């Protein structure tokens, strides 16, 4: 056997309650492998509030505090403060929320926490809708997608909120996107975040077979195609928002291929797909331009 590609420690065990092929679960497994057992999770309402298991059982081997929907960030900040006042400066405190708990209802508390630069890692596992409550739109739901509150006759026409820019505006020391399809990258980012003091924001694309109407075996496939089709760029923002690094070293694939097996996009007509595909490309170009622009500001270069 070769050396394991990722840490072998399993802090997320079997028997949990996620659907088949759940990307959010994979994200957790990787994150915990990166962070190790000296980690405390704070989880608000979201699928993960259920996945963990039913009282008095937990599938996860680190302490978890389940908290109210909109409070992940600040509850985590409280936990961190509480630990430090007990003399524990070592434990990594992680807020682990869905996109609803991040982009929408939890945005305020997250903003407050980020502005104070409280020493936590905030993770948004992004499955692009409220899945726990049965697939309702969130502000992270991408344009064109069906959800139970954006039916096909009235699918989502507004673009996904740019949460990354919002976080960058807080000048926190570390922001990154990740995808369950790139475990080494994800683990590297978590390890990096763990070593930085302050608020770290990591947004993980976590495909949801149930909510995306995607065959479960395609979870990782979707996590990969989202990246290679430029829909979900892999990036890092460091130096308090001043340095943007976009991962570009991949063979680009098409938007159409990415959405094809996803039932949530099935209603889209050819011209609509084309239009959204173009928007994806222009967002990507804007991102690259921004990367260049930031790099060109004298005194900001690394």
């Amino acid at each position, binding site marked *: 056997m070769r050396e394991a590609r990722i840490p072998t420690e399993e802090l997320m065990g079997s028997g949990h309650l996620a659907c088949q092929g759940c990307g959010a679960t994979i994200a957790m497994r990787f994150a915990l492998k990166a962070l190790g057992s000296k980690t*405390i999770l704070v989880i608000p309402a979201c699928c993960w509030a259920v996945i*963990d*298991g039913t009282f008095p059982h937990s599938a996860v081997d680190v*302490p978890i505090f389940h*908290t109210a929907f909109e409070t992940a960030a600040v509850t985590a*900040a*409280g936990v961190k*403060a509480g630990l430090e*006042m007990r003399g524990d400066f070592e434990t990594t405190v992680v807020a682990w929320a869905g996109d609803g708990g991040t982009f929408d209802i939890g945005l305020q*508390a997250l903003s407050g926490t980020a502005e104070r630069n409280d020493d936590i890692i905030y993770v948004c596992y992004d499955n692009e809708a409220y899945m726990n409550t049965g697939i309702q739109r969130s502000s992270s739901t991408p344009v064109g997608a069906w959800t139970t509150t954006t039916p096909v006759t009235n699918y989502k026409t507004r673009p996904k909120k740019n949460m990354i820019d919002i976080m960058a505006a807080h000048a926190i020391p570390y922001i990154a996107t990740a995808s369950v399809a790139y475990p080494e990258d994800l683990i590297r980012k978590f390890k990096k975040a763990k070593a930085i003091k302050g608020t770290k924001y990591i947004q993980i694309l976590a495909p949801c077979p149930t909510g995306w109407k995607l065959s479960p075996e395609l979870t990782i496939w979707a996590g990969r195609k989202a990246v290679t089709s430029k829909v979900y760029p892999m990036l890092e923002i460091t130096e308090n928002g001043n340095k943007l690094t976009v991962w570009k070293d991949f063979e680009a694939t098409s938007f159409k291929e990415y959405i094809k097996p996803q039932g949530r996009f099935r209603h889209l007509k050819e011209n609509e797909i084309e239009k959204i595909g173009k928007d994806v490309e222009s967002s990507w170009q804007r991102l690259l331009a921004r990367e260049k622009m930031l790099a060109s500001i004298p005194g900001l270069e690394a």
Partner: protein
Amino acid sequence: MKKVVMGNHAVSYGVRASEVKVISAYPVTPQTHIVELLSELVANGEIDAKFIKVESEHSAMAACVGASAAGSRTFTATSSQGLLLMTEMLHWAVGARLPIVLTNVNRAIGPPWSIWTDQNDSLSMRDVGWIQIYCESNQETQDAIPQAFKIAEEINLPVMLVLDAFFLSHTYEIVDLLETEQVRDFLPPYNPEIKLDTNDPHSFGNLSGPDYYMELRYMIEEAMNDARGVIKRVGKEFGEHFGRYYDMVVPYRCDDADLILVTSGTVASTTRAVIDEMRDEGIKIGALKIRVLRPFPFKEVSDILCSTKKVAVLDRNISFGNHGVFFQEVKSALYGKTDIPIIGYILGLGGRDVTPKVIREVADKAIKDKNPEPYINWIGVKR
């Protein structure tokens, strides 16, 4: 050390003496001085704590919940709108069985905007599962804090201390300030066995089906029942340490009274003055201050009130559609034990002054009122 301080600052000094480790609060009139002084005390090192300056009361309570779950002694203060915004997290603190202490400065709820006192904010949290203690003086607002932590940490429920806006919060009185060293004997450092701890990993608050939710709630109720004894014991112990004794209720000249006025908060002191005046006139009247609303002191209340001939409850609050809250509570305490008249009076809402004159008016009216219809009387409403 005795010092003339405002009620809000008495709260802050109580926090200092209690060696609180994490404070998280958001400013709201009339609580702001508490936060300001705490900021200063933390900044200058008089309190060895972290003060998480959150962006809302909801987050303040969430931060307290987190910090308390991590095993640290935790405090917050708020008022009115802020308390309401906290609602969800107040419940969370109870369900998670966290010994957080909160001081709420009673303030009326908008609209219209009002910054003046009444009890509707704290009373709307009556059923959440917090212990509620209504304070009457600046001394008490300070003394209540170490007691509250001691009670909370023993029974694993949070405690809400309540004081009237302005009449206490902004009023200067002489307060015998507690010294940290003295308090440490009374209130040892908080070191819970169960907490968020990577060496002993548990997950808190997991989904629970109908199979155990009720049992968990039952245990909260059990803790509330236990709290009665604990509150009394702690009040006594506090007295033994500091010479100031506290109890669930405070009767005043009730022994042979034909009429007892039931009060809470600052109205209680005013009422006592009126009682003295009326006693001088030969009227057999007494007063009963209810200090602890939750858990409700059924036994104390019924023991005292069953020996009188008439009860008048003064409510600085209104439960729309069902009279004043203290009135309801007293009635239920006396249910089946006596058939004396119990009459409720609503007064002082939104900071309307409850002067000795107003109380006298209530007392005179109560003497005359015989099982009046309606049971509830609005005092001083411009009709």
